[in-house]
Protein backbone atom coordinates (compact mmCIF):
# COMPACT_ATOMS: atom_id res chain seq x y z
CA UNK A 1 0.00 0.00 0.00
CA UNK A 2 1.36 3.41 -0.98
CA UNK A 3 -0.92 5.44 1.29
CA UNK A 4 -2.72 4.75 4.55
CA UNK A 5 -6.47 5.16 4.37
CA UNK A 6 -7.49 6.85 7.59
CA UNK A 7 -10.51 5.69 9.53
CA UNK A 8 -10.94 8.65 11.83
CA UNK A 9 -11.08 12.38 11.27
CA UNK A 10 -11.58 12.04 7.57
CA UNK A 11 -14.69 12.34 5.48
CA UNK A 12 -15.28 10.93 2.06
CA UNK A 13 -14.49 13.32 -0.78
CA UNK A 14 -18.09 13.09 -1.77
CA UNK A 15 -19.42 15.75 -3.98
CA UNK A 16 -18.93 19.02 -5.77
CA UNK A 17 -22.15 18.32 -7.59
CA UNK A 18 -23.64 21.24 -9.51
CA UNK A 19 -26.98 20.65 -7.81
CA UNK A 20 -25.59 20.76 -4.28
CA UNK A 21 -27.86 23.03 -2.22
CA UNK A 22 -30.65 23.11 -4.82
CA UNK A 23 -34.11 21.73 -4.10
CA UNK A 24 -35.81 18.86 -5.93
CA UNK A 25 -39.47 18.72 -6.91
CA UNK A 26 -40.35 17.37 -3.45
CA UNK A 27 -38.66 20.34 -1.78
CA UNK A 28 -35.75 18.23 -0.50
CA UNK A 29 -32.32 19.84 -0.59
CA UNK A 30 -29.53 18.04 -2.44
CA UNK A 31 -26.94 17.56 0.31
CA UNK A 32 -23.45 16.14 0.61
CA UNK A 33 -23.45 12.65 2.17
CA UNK A 34 -21.04 13.82 4.89
CA UNK A 35 -23.51 16.50 5.98
CA UNK A 36 -26.46 14.09 5.89
CA UNK A 37 -24.81 11.64 8.26
CA UNK A 38 -22.20 13.57 10.22
CA UNK A 39 -23.79 17.01 10.58
CA UNK A 40 -27.58 16.68 10.44
CA UNK A 41 -29.47 15.53 13.51
CA UNK A 42 -30.77 11.98 13.18
CA UNK A 43 -34.23 11.17 14.50
CA UNK A 44 -35.14 7.79 16.03
CA UNK A 45 -38.04 5.88 14.41
CA UNK A 46 -39.51 2.47 15.18
CA UNK A 47 -39.73 0.68 11.83
CA UNK A 48 -39.55 -2.67 10.06
CA UNK A 49 -36.64 -3.28 7.70
CA UNK A 50 -38.99 -2.98 4.73
CA UNK A 51 -40.13 0.42 5.96
CA UNK A 52 -36.51 1.40 6.44
CA UNK A 53 -35.82 0.60 2.77
CA UNK A 54 -38.69 2.88 1.82
CA UNK A 55 -37.40 5.68 4.06
CA UNK A 56 -33.89 5.31 2.66
CA UNK A 57 -35.09 5.47 -0.94
CA UNK A 58 -37.08 8.63 -0.17
CA UNK A 59 -33.74 10.31 0.53
CA UNK A 60 -31.69 8.76 -2.29
CA UNK A 61 -32.78 10.79 -5.36
CA UNK A 62 -33.43 7.54 -7.21
CA UNK A 63 -34.35 7.86 -10.87
CA UNK A 64 -35.69 4.40 -11.61
CA UNK A 65 -36.79 1.46 -9.52
CA UNK A 66 -38.04 -1.78 -11.05
CA UNK A 67 -40.03 -4.25 -8.96
CA UNK A 68 -40.91 -7.91 -9.06
CA UNK A 69 -42.53 -9.79 -6.20
CA UNK A 70 -40.58 -12.35 -4.24
CA UNK A 71 -40.66 -12.88 -0.50
CA UNK A 72 -39.26 -11.30 1.66
CA UNK A 73 -38.56 -8.20 -0.42
CA UNK A 74 -42.06 -7.80 -1.86
CA UNK A 75 -43.21 -5.44 0.84
CA UNK A 76 -40.23 -3.11 0.31
CA UNK A 77 -40.82 -3.13 -3.45
CA UNK A 78 -44.48 -2.30 -2.91
CA UNK A 79 -43.63 0.51 -0.49
CA UNK A 80 -41.29 2.01 -3.08
CA UNK A 81 -44.31 2.01 -5.40
CA UNK A 82 -46.10 4.14 -2.82
CA UNK A 83 -43.34 6.72 -2.69
CA UNK A 84 -43.23 6.75 -6.49
CA UNK A 85 -46.89 7.78 -6.34
CA UNK A 86 -45.84 10.52 -3.92
CA UNK A 87 -43.29 11.79 -6.45
CA UNK A 88 -39.99 10.64 -4.92
CA UNK A 89 -38.88 8.66 -8.00
CA UNK A 90 -39.01 9.42 -11.71
CA UNK A 91 -39.81 5.90 -12.88
CA UNK A 92 -41.20 2.78 -11.22
CA UNK A 93 -42.69 -0.29 -12.85
CA UNK A 94 -43.01 -4.04 -12.49
CA UNK A 95 -40.75 -6.23 -14.60
CA UNK A 96 -41.71 -9.58 -16.11
CA UNK A 97 -39.28 -11.62 -13.99
CA UNK A 98 -36.13 -11.00 -11.97
CA UNK A 99 -34.08 -11.54 -15.10
CA UNK A 100 -36.11 -8.90 -16.92
CA UNK A 101 -35.95 -6.55 -13.95
CA UNK A 102 -32.18 -6.57 -13.86
CA UNK A 103 -32.02 -6.00 -17.63
CA UNK A 104 -34.43 -3.10 -17.28
CA UNK A 105 -32.31 -1.71 -14.46
CA UNK A 106 -29.29 -1.89 -16.77
CA UNK A 107 -31.17 0.03 -19.46
CA UNK A 108 -32.09 2.79 -17.05
CA UNK A 109 -28.52 2.97 -15.72
CA UNK A 110 -27.03 3.02 -19.23
CA UNK A 111 -29.33 5.98 -19.84
CA UNK A 112 -27.90 7.85 -16.85
CA UNK A 113 -30.40 7.21 -14.05
CA UNK A 114 -29.68 6.26 -10.45
CA UNK A 115 -31.29 2.82 -10.19
CA UNK A 116 -32.50 0.77 -7.24
CA UNK A 117 -34.15 -2.62 -7.07
CA UNK A 118 -34.73 -5.39 -4.58
CA UNK A 119 -34.68 -9.14 -4.86
CA UNK A 120 -34.27 -12.29 -2.80
CA UNK A 121 -33.41 -15.99 -2.88
CA UNK A 122 -34.39 -17.73 -6.12
CA UNK A 123 -34.95 -14.26 -7.61
CA UNK A 124 -31.29 -13.42 -7.05
CA UNK A 125 -30.26 -16.60 -8.83
CA UNK A 126 -32.69 -16.07 -11.68
CA UNK A 127 -31.23 -12.60 -12.18
CA UNK A 128 -27.64 -13.80 -11.82
CA UNK A 129 -26.44 -13.40 -15.43
CA UNK A 130 -27.11 -9.68 -15.17
CA UNK A 131 -24.89 -9.00 -12.18
CA UNK A 132 -21.51 -9.53 -13.88
CA UNK A 133 -22.98 -7.73 -16.90
CA UNK A 134 -23.73 -4.72 -14.68
CA UNK A 135 -20.22 -4.83 -13.25
CA UNK A 136 -18.53 -5.23 -16.63
CA UNK A 137 -20.58 -2.36 -17.97
CA UNK A 138 -19.61 -0.25 -14.95
CA UNK A 139 -23.23 0.43 -13.97
CA UNK A 140 -23.50 1.60 -10.33
CA UNK A 141 -26.93 0.04 -9.76
CA UNK A 142 -27.94 -0.85 -6.23
CA UNK A 143 -29.82 -4.06 -5.50
CA UNK A 144 -31.02 -4.76 -2.00
CA UNK A 145 -30.86 -8.52 -1.44
CA UNK A 146 -33.10 -9.72 1.39
CA UNK A 147 -31.56 -13.17 1.73
CA UNK A 148 -33.71 -16.32 1.96
CA UNK A 149 -33.50 -19.99 1.00
CA UNK A 150 -32.80 -20.73 -2.65
CA UNK A 151 -33.25 -24.48 -2.95
CA UNK A 152 -36.10 -26.86 -3.51
CA UNK A 153 -38.21 -27.54 -1.51
CA UNK A 154 -38.79 -23.84 -1.36
CA UNK A 155 -38.12 -22.02 1.85
CA UNK A 156 -38.92 -18.36 2.19
CA UNK A 157 -37.03 -18.21 5.46
CA UNK A 158 -33.63 -16.57 6.06
CA UNK A 159 -30.56 -18.25 4.57
CA UNK A 160 -27.51 -16.41 3.24
CA UNK A 161 -26.42 -18.94 0.64
CA UNK A 162 -27.33 -16.59 -2.23
CA UNK A 163 -24.59 -14.20 -1.09
CA UNK A 164 -22.07 -16.91 -1.94
CA UNK A 165 -23.13 -16.65 -5.57
CA UNK A 166 -22.66 -12.89 -5.59
CA UNK A 167 -19.05 -12.92 -4.43
CA UNK A 168 -17.34 -13.07 -7.82
CA UNK A 169 -19.84 -11.09 -9.87
CA UNK A 170 -17.75 -7.93 -9.67
CA UNK A 171 -20.33 -6.22 -7.46
CA UNK A 172 -19.68 -4.62 -4.12
CA UNK A 173 -21.37 -6.81 -1.51
CA UNK A 174 -22.17 -5.27 1.87
CA UNK A 175 -23.95 -7.18 4.64
CA UNK A 176 -26.24 -5.31 7.03
CA UNK A 177 -26.62 -6.67 10.54
CA UNK A 178 -29.51 -4.44 11.57
CA UNK A 179 -32.17 -2.19 10.10
CA UNK A 180 -29.92 0.74 11.00
CA UNK A 181 -27.10 -0.75 8.95
CA UNK A 182 -29.56 -1.28 6.12
CA UNK A 183 -30.58 2.37 6.13
CA UNK A 184 -27.00 3.62 6.32
CA UNK A 185 -25.69 1.21 3.70
CA UNK A 186 -28.41 2.05 1.16
CA UNK A 187 -27.58 5.77 1.21
CA UNK A 188 -23.83 5.38 1.58
CA UNK A 189 -23.75 2.51 -0.90
CA UNK A 190 -24.94 4.75 -3.74
CA UNK A 191 -22.24 7.30 -3.00
CA UNK A 192 -19.42 4.75 -2.87
CA UNK A 193 -20.63 2.79 -5.89
CA UNK A 194 -20.96 5.96 -7.99
CA UNK A 195 -17.49 7.34 -7.33
CA UNK A 196 -15.86 7.74 -10.77
CA UNK A 197 -12.96 5.49 -9.78
CA UNK A 198 -15.34 2.80 -8.46
CA UNK A 199 -18.54 2.94 -10.51
CA UNK A 200 -19.64 -0.67 -10.16
CA UNK A 201 -22.92 -2.12 -8.85
CA UNK A 202 -23.56 -2.80 -5.21
CA UNK A 203 -25.57 -5.49 -3.47
CA UNK A 204 -26.70 -4.35 -0.04
CA UNK A 205 -27.64 -7.62 1.62
CA UNK A 206 -29.60 -8.28 4.78
CA UNK A 207 -31.03 -11.41 6.34
CA UNK A 208 -34.65 -11.74 5.26
CA UNK A 209 -37.35 -11.52 7.94
CA UNK A 210 -34.81 -11.10 10.76
CA UNK A 211 -34.14 -7.62 9.41
CA UNK A 212 -36.94 -6.96 6.90
CA UNK A 213 -39.90 -7.97 9.01
CA UNK A 214 -38.90 -7.14 12.57
CA UNK A 215 -39.25 -3.69 14.08
CA UNK A 216 -36.25 -1.84 15.38
CA UNK A 217 -35.31 1.67 16.38
CA UNK A 218 -33.55 3.32 13.49
CA UNK A 219 -32.06 6.81 13.37
CA UNK A 220 -33.15 8.51 10.17
CA UNK A 221 -31.65 11.61 8.62
CA UNK A 222 -34.03 14.56 8.04
CA UNK A 223 -36.47 13.97 5.19
CA UNK A 224 -35.83 17.43 3.76
CA UNK A 225 -32.26 16.39 2.89
CA UNK A 226 -31.49 14.00 0.05
CA UNK A 227 -28.46 12.71 -1.85
CA UNK A 228 -27.19 14.71 -4.78
CA UNK A 229 -28.43 12.99 -7.93
CA UNK A 230 -26.27 10.63 -9.93
CA UNK A 231 -24.01 12.53 -12.31
CA UNK A 232 -23.56 10.52 -15.51
CA UNK A 233 -20.93 12.96 -16.76
CA UNK A 234 -18.54 11.53 -14.17
CA UNK A 235 -18.99 8.01 -15.46
CA UNK A 236 -15.75 6.22 -16.39
CA UNK A 237 -17.48 4.90 -19.50
CA UNK A 238 -19.48 6.53 -22.24
CA UNK A 239 -23.20 6.70 -21.70
CA UNK A 240 -25.19 4.20 -23.83
CA UNK A 241 -22.70 4.08 -26.70
CA UNK A 242 -24.04 1.76 -29.40
CA UNK A 243 -20.68 1.67 -31.17
CA UNK A 244 -18.47 0.52 -28.30
CA UNK A 245 -18.26 -2.55 -26.15
CA UNK A 246 -20.20 -3.70 -24.21
CA UNK A 247 -23.36 -2.36 -25.92
CA UNK A 248 -21.81 -3.00 -29.34
CA UNK A 249 -21.82 -6.71 -28.58
CA UNK A 250 -25.58 -6.74 -28.38
CA UNK A 251 -25.90 -5.79 -32.01
CA UNK A 252 -22.63 -7.31 -33.20
CA UNK A 253 -21.76 -10.55 -31.35
CA UNK A 254 -19.01 -11.18 -33.89
CA UNK A 255 -16.63 -8.85 -32.09
CA UNK A 256 -16.73 -10.98 -28.97
CA UNK A 257 -14.98 -13.81 -30.77
CA UNK A 258 -12.61 -11.90 -32.99
CA UNK A 259 -9.28 -10.25 -32.55
CA UNK A 260 -10.86 -6.85 -33.14
CA UNK A 261 -10.94 -6.80 -29.39
CA UNK A 262 -7.68 -8.20 -28.13
CA UNK A 263 -7.99 -10.96 -25.55
CA UNK A 264 -5.70 -8.82 -23.41
CA UNK A 265 -8.49 -6.25 -23.41
CA UNK A 266 -10.89 -8.80 -22.00
CA UNK A 267 -8.33 -9.69 -19.33
CA UNK A 268 -7.59 -6.06 -18.59
CA UNK A 269 -11.33 -5.39 -18.44
CA UNK A 270 -11.82 -8.02 -15.74
CA UNK A 271 -8.82 -6.70 -13.84
CA UNK A 272 -10.24 -3.21 -14.05
CA UNK A 273 -13.58 -4.23 -12.50
CA UNK A 274 -11.71 -5.89 -9.66
CA UNK A 275 -9.46 -2.84 -9.33
CA UNK A 276 -12.56 -0.64 -9.11
CA UNK A 277 -13.71 -2.75 -6.18
CA UNK A 278 -10.33 -2.31 -4.49
CA UNK A 279 -10.61 1.46 -4.96
CA UNK A 280 -13.92 1.43 -3.09
CA UNK A 281 -12.04 0.75 0.17
CA UNK A 282 -10.77 4.31 0.27
CA UNK A 283 -14.31 5.72 0.09
CA UNK A 284 -15.99 3.07 2.21
CA UNK A 285 -13.66 3.14 5.21
CA UNK A 286 -14.33 6.75 6.26
CA UNK A 287 -18.01 6.56 5.35
CA UNK A 288 -19.08 3.41 7.23
CA UNK A 289 -16.35 3.50 9.86
CA UNK A 290 -14.12 0.76 8.47
CA UNK A 291 -14.83 -2.51 6.71
CA UNK A 292 -15.11 -4.29 10.08
CA UNK A 293 -16.17 -3.48 13.63
CA UNK A 294 -14.17 -5.10 16.41
CA UNK A 295 -14.69 -5.70 20.12
CA UNK A 296 -12.03 -7.17 22.42
CA UNK A 297 -10.00 -8.67 19.60
CA UNK A 298 -7.03 -9.13 21.92
CA UNK A 299 -8.79 -12.25 23.28
CA UNK A 300 -7.73 -15.77 22.39
CA UNK A 301 -11.23 -16.74 21.33
CA UNK A 302 -12.94 -14.74 18.61
CA UNK A 303 -16.25 -14.90 16.82
CA UNK A 304 -16.13 -13.48 13.30
CA UNK A 305 -19.42 -13.02 11.52
CA UNK A 306 -21.59 -10.91 9.28
CA UNK A 307 -25.28 -10.03 9.20
CA UNK A 308 -27.57 -11.16 12.02
CA UNK A 309 -25.10 -13.88 13.00
CA UNK A 310 -23.27 -10.99 14.66
CA UNK A 311 -26.30 -10.06 16.76
CA UNK A 312 -26.69 -13.65 17.93
CA UNK A 313 -22.98 -13.80 18.67
CA UNK A 314 -23.15 -10.71 20.90
CA UNK A 315 -25.63 -12.45 23.15
CA UNK A 316 -23.56 -15.65 23.03
CA UNK A 317 -20.52 -13.69 24.17
CA UNK A 318 -22.53 -12.32 27.12
CA UNK A 319 -23.59 -15.87 28.09
CA UNK A 320 -20.04 -17.17 27.79
CA UNK A 321 -18.75 -14.31 29.95
CA UNK A 322 -21.11 -15.49 32.71
CA UNK A 323 -19.16 -18.76 32.65
CA UNK A 324 -15.86 -16.93 32.68
CA UNK A 325 -15.09 -17.53 29.00
CA UNK A 326 -13.95 -14.31 27.40
CA UNK A 327 -14.62 -13.99 23.68
CA UNK A 328 -13.96 -11.13 21.25
CA UNK A 329 -16.14 -10.20 18.29
CA UNK A 330 -15.45 -9.12 14.71
CA UNK A 331 -18.30 -7.89 12.54
CA UNK A 332 -17.55 -7.95 8.83
CA UNK A 333 -19.48 -5.22 7.06
CA UNK A 334 -18.23 -5.57 3.50
CA UNK A 335 -17.86 -9.03 1.99
CA UNK A 336 -16.68 -7.46 -1.26
CA UNK A 337 -14.24 -5.89 -1.00
CA UNK A 338 -13.20 -8.41 1.63
CA UNK A 339 -11.30 -6.88 4.57
CA UNK A 340 -8.20 -9.08 4.11
CA UNK A 341 -5.75 -6.86 5.97
CA UNK A 342 -8.20 -6.05 8.77
CA UNK A 343 -8.97 -9.74 9.36
CA UNK A 344 -5.29 -10.65 9.38
CA UNK A 345 -4.64 -7.93 11.94
CA UNK A 346 -7.50 -8.66 14.34
CA UNK A 347 -7.01 -12.44 14.32
CA UNK A 348 -3.27 -12.23 14.84
CA UNK A 349 -3.38 -13.38 18.47
CA UNK A 350 -6.49 -15.55 18.34
CA UNK A 351 -6.18 -19.26 19.04
CA UNK A 352 -9.78 -20.16 18.19
CA UNK A 353 -11.85 -18.36 15.56
CA UNK A 354 -15.53 -19.30 15.31
CA UNK A 355 -17.57 -18.33 12.25
CA UNK A 356 -21.33 -18.76 12.76
CA UNK A 357 -23.33 -18.63 9.54
CA UNK A 358 -26.88 -18.90 8.26
CA UNK A 359 -26.01 -21.19 5.34
CA UNK A 360 -24.82 -24.72 4.66
CA UNK A 361 -21.74 -23.75 2.65
CA UNK A 362 -19.82 -21.81 5.24
CA UNK A 363 -18.62 -19.35 2.62
CA UNK A 364 -17.56 -16.73 5.16
CA UNK A 365 -15.42 -19.25 7.03
CA UNK A 366 -13.77 -20.19 3.71
CA UNK A 367 -13.00 -16.55 3.01
CA UNK A 368 -11.41 -16.17 6.42
CA UNK A 369 -9.51 -19.45 6.09
CA UNK A 370 -8.06 -18.31 2.80
CA UNK A 371 -6.99 -15.00 4.34
CA UNK A 372 -5.12 -15.79 7.54
CA UNK A 373 -2.07 -17.87 8.40
CA UNK A 374 -2.48 -21.01 10.55
CA UNK A 375 -6.03 -21.37 9.37
CA UNK A 376 -6.67 -24.50 11.37
CA UNK A 377 -7.62 -21.94 14.02
CA UNK A 378 -10.85 -21.32 12.09
CA UNK A 379 -13.83 -23.38 13.21
CA UNK A 380 -16.53 -23.31 10.52
CA UNK A 381 -19.65 -23.01 12.57
CA UNK A 382 -22.10 -23.23 14.02
CA UNK A 383 -24.21 -23.39 10.88
CA UNK A 384 -27.95 -23.28 10.52
CA UNK A 385 -29.82 -23.29 7.24
CA UNK A 386 -33.14 -23.50 5.48
CA UNK A 387 -34.69 -20.84 7.65
CA UNK A 388 -33.67 -22.16 11.06
CA UNK A 389 -32.90 -19.63 13.72
CA UNK A 390 -29.52 -19.67 15.44
CA UNK A 391 -30.15 -19.28 19.17
CA UNK A 392 -27.24 -17.75 21.03
CA UNK A 393 -27.22 -20.87 23.20
CA UNK A 394 -26.31 -22.95 20.16
CA UNK A 395 -23.27 -20.76 19.54
CA UNK A 396 -22.33 -21.08 23.22
CA UNK A 397 -22.70 -24.86 23.12
CA UNK A 398 -20.62 -25.28 20.00
CA UNK A 399 -17.83 -23.06 21.31
CA UNK A 400 -17.76 -24.91 24.63
CA UNK A 401 -17.78 -28.28 22.91
CA UNK A 402 -14.89 -27.29 20.68
CA UNK A 403 -12.93 -25.98 23.65
CA UNK A 404 -13.63 -29.16 25.65
CA UNK A 405 -15.63 -27.33 28.29
CA UNK A 406 -18.50 -29.12 30.07
CA UNK A 407 -21.70 -27.87 28.42
CA UNK A 408 -24.66 -29.42 30.23
CA UNK A 409 -27.82 -28.98 28.22
CA UNK A 410 -27.56 -25.40 27.14
CA UNK A 411 -30.80 -25.49 25.20
CA UNK A 412 -32.56 -25.79 28.54
CA UNK A 413 -30.96 -22.59 29.78
Amino acid at each position, binding site marked *: *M*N*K*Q*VELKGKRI*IASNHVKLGQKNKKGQTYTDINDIFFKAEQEPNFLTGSEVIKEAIKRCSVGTSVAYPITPQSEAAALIGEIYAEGYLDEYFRGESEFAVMGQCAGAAFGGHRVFTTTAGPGTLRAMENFPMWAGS*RLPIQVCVTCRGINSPLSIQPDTLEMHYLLETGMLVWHAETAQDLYDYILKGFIVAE*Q*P*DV*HIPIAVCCDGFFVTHTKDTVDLSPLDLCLTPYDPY*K*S*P*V*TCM*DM*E*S*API*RMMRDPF*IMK*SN*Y*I*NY*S*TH*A*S*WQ*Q*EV*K*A*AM*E*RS*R*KHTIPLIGGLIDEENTDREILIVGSGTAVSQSREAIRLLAEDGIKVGLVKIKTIRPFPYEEIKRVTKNAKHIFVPEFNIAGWLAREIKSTIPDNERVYCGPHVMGGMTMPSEVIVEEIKKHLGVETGNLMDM
Partner: protein
Amino acid sequence: MSHYEVKAGPISFLPPAAASMGNVLPDPGEAHIEGRIVPEEEAYEYCARKILAAKVPTIFPGPLVLWKWNDHVAEKAKAIRELANEAPMRLIPMADYRPKYPKIDAAVEINPNHPNLTIWHNKIDACIFVGVHCHQANLALKMIRAATNCYTMAMCAQAGHEDACLSFRDASVEKIKKITAAVKKLKSEGVKSQATDFAQFSMDRKGFIVAPS
Protein backbone atom coordinates in the same frame (compact mmCIF):
# COMPACT_ATOMS: atom_id res chain seq x y z
CA MET B 1 5.60 3.18 3.13
CA SER B 2 6.23 0.42 0.62
CA HIS B 3 4.24 0.37 -2.57
CA TYR B 4 3.90 -1.54 -5.80
CA GLU B 5 6.14 0.28 -8.26
CA VAL B 6 4.44 1.20 -11.52
CA LYS B 7 7.45 1.32 -13.82
CA ALA B 8 7.42 1.37 -17.60
CA GLY B 9 7.20 -2.09 -19.19
CA PRO B 10 7.34 -4.50 -20.74
CA ILE B 11 6.36 -6.01 -17.39
CA SER B 12 4.88 -9.39 -18.16
CA PHE B 13 2.27 -11.22 -20.19
CA LEU B 14 -0.45 -10.00 -17.85
CA PRO B 15 0.65 -7.53 -15.16
CA PRO B 16 -1.64 -7.02 -12.18
CA ALA B 17 -3.77 -3.93 -11.71
CA ALA B 18 -1.88 -1.64 -9.35
CA ALA B 19 -5.06 -1.15 -7.30
CA SER B 20 -5.13 -4.88 -6.64
CA MET B 21 -1.55 -4.60 -5.37
CA GLY B 22 -2.69 -2.08 -2.75
CA ASN B 23 -1.91 1.16 -4.54
CA VAL B 24 -4.33 3.92 -3.56
CA LEU B 25 -5.17 6.88 -5.77
CA PRO B 26 -3.96 10.35 -4.78
CA ASP B 27 -6.24 12.80 -2.94
CA PRO B 28 -6.87 16.31 -4.29
CA GLY B 29 -3.60 18.25 -4.37
CA GLU B 30 -1.60 15.08 -4.84
CA ALA B 31 -0.33 13.03 -7.77
CA HIS B 32 1.49 9.74 -7.98
CA ILE B 33 4.84 8.96 -9.53
CA GLU B 34 5.34 5.25 -10.18
CA GLY B 35 2.95 4.43 -7.33
CA ARG B 36 4.48 6.86 -4.84
CA ILE B 37 2.08 9.57 -3.64
CA VAL B 38 3.64 13.02 -4.06
CA PRO B 39 2.48 16.64 -3.83
CA GLU B 40 1.10 17.63 -7.21
CA GLU B 41 3.75 20.33 -7.66
CA GLU B 42 6.49 17.70 -7.59
CA ALA B 43 4.89 15.79 -10.44
CA TYR B 44 4.84 18.70 -12.92
CA GLU B 45 8.60 18.87 -13.28
CA TYR B 46 8.92 15.08 -13.29
CA CYS B 47 6.36 14.89 -16.08
CA ALA B 48 8.12 17.64 -18.04
CA ARG B 49 11.46 15.85 -17.76
CA LYS B 50 9.93 12.61 -19.06
CA ILE B 51 8.45 14.49 -22.03
CA LEU B 52 11.74 16.17 -22.92
CA ALA B 53 13.81 13.01 -22.47
CA ALA B 54 11.64 10.95 -24.83
CA LYS B 55 12.38 10.38 -28.50
CA VAL B 56 8.73 10.05 -29.46
CA PRO B 57 6.68 11.82 -26.78
CA THR B 58 3.02 11.64 -27.68
CA ILE B 59 -0.29 12.93 -26.39
CA PHE B 60 -3.34 10.68 -26.74
CA PRO B 61 -6.34 13.02 -26.55
CA GLY B 62 -9.60 11.16 -26.01
CA PRO B 63 -13.18 12.00 -26.94
CA LEU B 64 -13.72 14.09 -23.82
CA VAL B 65 -11.34 16.73 -25.19
CA LEU B 66 -11.67 16.08 -28.92
CA TRP B 67 -15.33 17.05 -29.11
CA LYS B 68 -16.54 20.47 -27.94
CA TRP B 69 -19.28 19.32 -25.60
CA ASN B 70 -18.79 22.41 -23.45
CA ASP B 71 -16.70 25.57 -23.52
CA HIS B 72 -14.36 24.39 -20.79
CA VAL B 73 -13.35 21.45 -22.96
CA ALA B 74 -12.51 23.75 -25.87
CA GLU B 75 -10.14 25.62 -23.58
CA LYS B 76 -8.62 22.36 -22.46
CA ALA B 77 -8.06 21.28 -26.05
CA LYS B 78 -6.25 24.54 -26.77
CA ALA B 79 -4.04 24.01 -23.73
CA ILE B 80 -3.19 20.51 -24.94
CA ARG B 81 -2.24 21.86 -28.37
CA GLU B 82 0.00 24.46 -26.69
CA LEU B 83 1.75 21.71 -24.71
CA ALA B 84 2.23 19.64 -27.88
CA ASN B 85 3.72 22.63 -29.70
CA GLU B 86 5.96 23.64 -26.82
CA ALA B 87 7.52 20.23 -26.12
CA PRO B 88 7.19 19.23 -29.07
CA MET B 89 4.91 16.19 -28.80
CA ARG B 90 2.91 14.26 -31.36
CA LEU B 91 -0.85 14.15 -31.13
CA ILE B 92 -2.49 10.81 -31.89
CA PRO B 93 -6.20 10.78 -31.07
CA MET B 94 -8.22 8.12 -29.32
CA ALA B 95 -11.33 9.51 -30.96
CA ASP B 96 -13.63 6.75 -29.75
CA TYR B 97 -13.51 3.22 -28.40
CA ARG B 98 -15.02 1.33 -31.34
CA PRO B 99 -13.39 -1.87 -32.49
CA LYS B 100 -11.92 -0.95 -35.88
CA TYR B 101 -12.51 -3.02 -39.06
CA PRO B 102 -10.43 -4.48 -40.57
CA LYS B 103 -7.67 -2.96 -38.43
CA ILE B 104 -6.63 0.40 -37.04
CA ASP B 105 -4.28 2.76 -38.84
CA ALA B 106 -1.65 2.72 -36.12
CA ALA B 107 0.13 5.75 -37.57
CA VAL B 108 -2.75 8.10 -36.86
CA GLU B 109 -4.99 6.59 -34.20
CA ILE B 110 -4.96 4.63 -30.97
CA ASN B 111 -7.67 2.34 -29.70
CA PRO B 112 -8.20 0.94 -26.19
CA ASN B 113 -8.77 -2.54 -27.59
CA HIS B 114 -5.17 -2.87 -28.79
CA PRO B 115 -3.22 0.27 -27.79
CA ASN B 116 0.11 -1.55 -28.01
CA LEU B 117 -0.14 -1.57 -31.83
CA THR B 118 0.06 2.23 -31.98
CA ILE B 119 2.91 2.35 -29.45
CA TRP B 120 4.93 -0.25 -31.38
CA HIS B 121 4.24 1.23 -34.81
CA ASN B 122 5.35 4.75 -33.83
CA LYS B 123 8.03 3.65 -31.32
CA ILE B 124 6.40 5.89 -28.70
CA ASP B 125 8.47 5.96 -25.52
CA ALA B 126 6.45 8.45 -23.43
CA CYS B 127 2.80 9.34 -23.63
CA ILE B 128 0.11 11.35 -21.91
CA PHE B 129 -3.51 10.24 -21.79
CA VAL B 130 -5.95 13.11 -21.55
CA GLY B 131 -9.69 13.21 -22.10
CA VAL B 132 -10.04 9.43 -22.24
CA HIS B 133 -12.86 7.89 -20.19
CA CYS B 134 -11.31 6.36 -17.08
CA HIS B 135 -12.33 2.78 -17.80
CA GLN B 136 -10.89 2.78 -21.31
CA ALA B 137 -7.76 4.59 -20.11
CA ASN B 138 -7.20 1.92 -17.46
CA LEU B 139 -7.65 -0.87 -20.01
CA ALA B 140 -5.11 0.73 -22.31
CA LEU B 141 -2.63 1.68 -19.60
CA LYS B 142 -2.34 -1.90 -18.36
CA MET B 143 -1.89 -3.29 -21.85
CA ILE B 144 0.74 -0.71 -22.74
CA ARG B 145 2.64 -1.51 -19.57
CA ALA B 146 2.38 -5.21 -20.26
CA ALA B 147 3.77 -5.17 -23.75
CA THR B 148 5.75 -1.99 -24.42
CA ASN B 149 8.50 0.14 -22.91
CA CYS B 150 6.43 3.31 -23.09
CA TYR B 151 6.36 5.56 -20.00
CA THR B 152 2.68 6.33 -19.43
CA MET B 153 1.30 9.49 -17.87
CA ALA B 154 -2.33 10.40 -17.21
CA MET B 155 -3.96 13.81 -16.97
CA CYS B 156 -7.21 12.55 -15.48
CA ALA B 157 -10.23 14.80 -14.94
CA GLN B 158 -11.48 12.50 -12.19
CA ALA B 159 -9.56 10.55 -9.53
CA GLY B 160 -6.40 9.54 -11.43
CA HIS B 161 -4.97 6.23 -12.65
CA GLU B 162 -2.84 3.81 -10.63
CA ASP B 163 -1.86 1.93 -13.77
CA ALA B 164 -0.13 4.95 -15.30
CA CYS B 165 3.51 5.44 -14.36
CA LEU B 166 2.58 9.00 -13.38
CA SER B 167 -0.88 10.40 -12.80
CA PHE B 168 -2.49 13.71 -12.01
CA ARG B 169 -6.09 13.97 -10.88
CA ASP B 170 -8.81 16.65 -11.32
CA ALA B 171 -7.12 17.75 -14.55
CA SER B 172 -8.02 21.29 -15.55
CA VAL B 173 -6.85 23.82 -18.13
CA GLU B 174 -4.62 25.33 -15.45
CA LYS B 175 -2.95 22.01 -14.69
CA ILE B 176 -2.21 21.32 -18.35
CA LYS B 177 -0.75 24.82 -18.60
CA LYS B 178 1.42 24.05 -15.57
CA ILE B 179 3.00 21.14 -17.44
CA THR B 180 3.64 23.43 -20.40
CA ALA B 181 5.20 25.96 -18.03
CA ALA B 182 7.38 23.24 -16.49
CA VAL B 183 8.56 22.21 -19.96
CA LYS B 184 9.35 25.84 -20.82
CA LYS B 185 11.24 26.30 -17.56
CA LEU B 186 13.38 23.21 -18.10
CA LYS B 187 14.14 24.26 -21.64
CA SER B 188 15.16 27.71 -20.42
CA GLU B 189 17.54 25.95 -18.02
CA GLY B 190 19.16 24.16 -20.93
CA VAL B 191 17.32 20.83 -20.96
CA LYS B 192 16.88 19.95 -24.61
CA SER B 193 14.04 17.98 -26.11
CA GLN B 194 15.25 14.62 -27.40
CA ALA B 195 12.25 14.26 -29.68
CA THR B 196 12.98 13.03 -33.19
CA ASP B 197 11.73 15.16 -36.08
CA PHE B 198 8.18 14.56 -37.14
CA ALA B 199 5.41 16.20 -39.09
CA GLN B 200 2.14 16.33 -37.19
CA PHE B 201 -0.66 14.99 -39.36
CA SER B 202 -4.02 16.68 -39.39
CA MET B 203 -7.43 15.35 -40.28
CA ASP B 204 -10.50 16.79 -41.90
CA ARG B 205 -13.89 16.51 -40.25
CA LYS B 206 -14.47 13.13 -41.88
CA GLY B 207 -11.30 11.70 -40.39
CA PHE B 208 -9.23 11.73 -43.59
CA ILE B 209 -5.60 12.81 -43.34
CA VAL B 210 -5.18 16.15 -45.10
CA ALA B 211 -1.67 17.06 -44.05
CA PRO B 212 1.08 16.22 -44.54
CA SER B 213 -0.24 14.89 -47.86
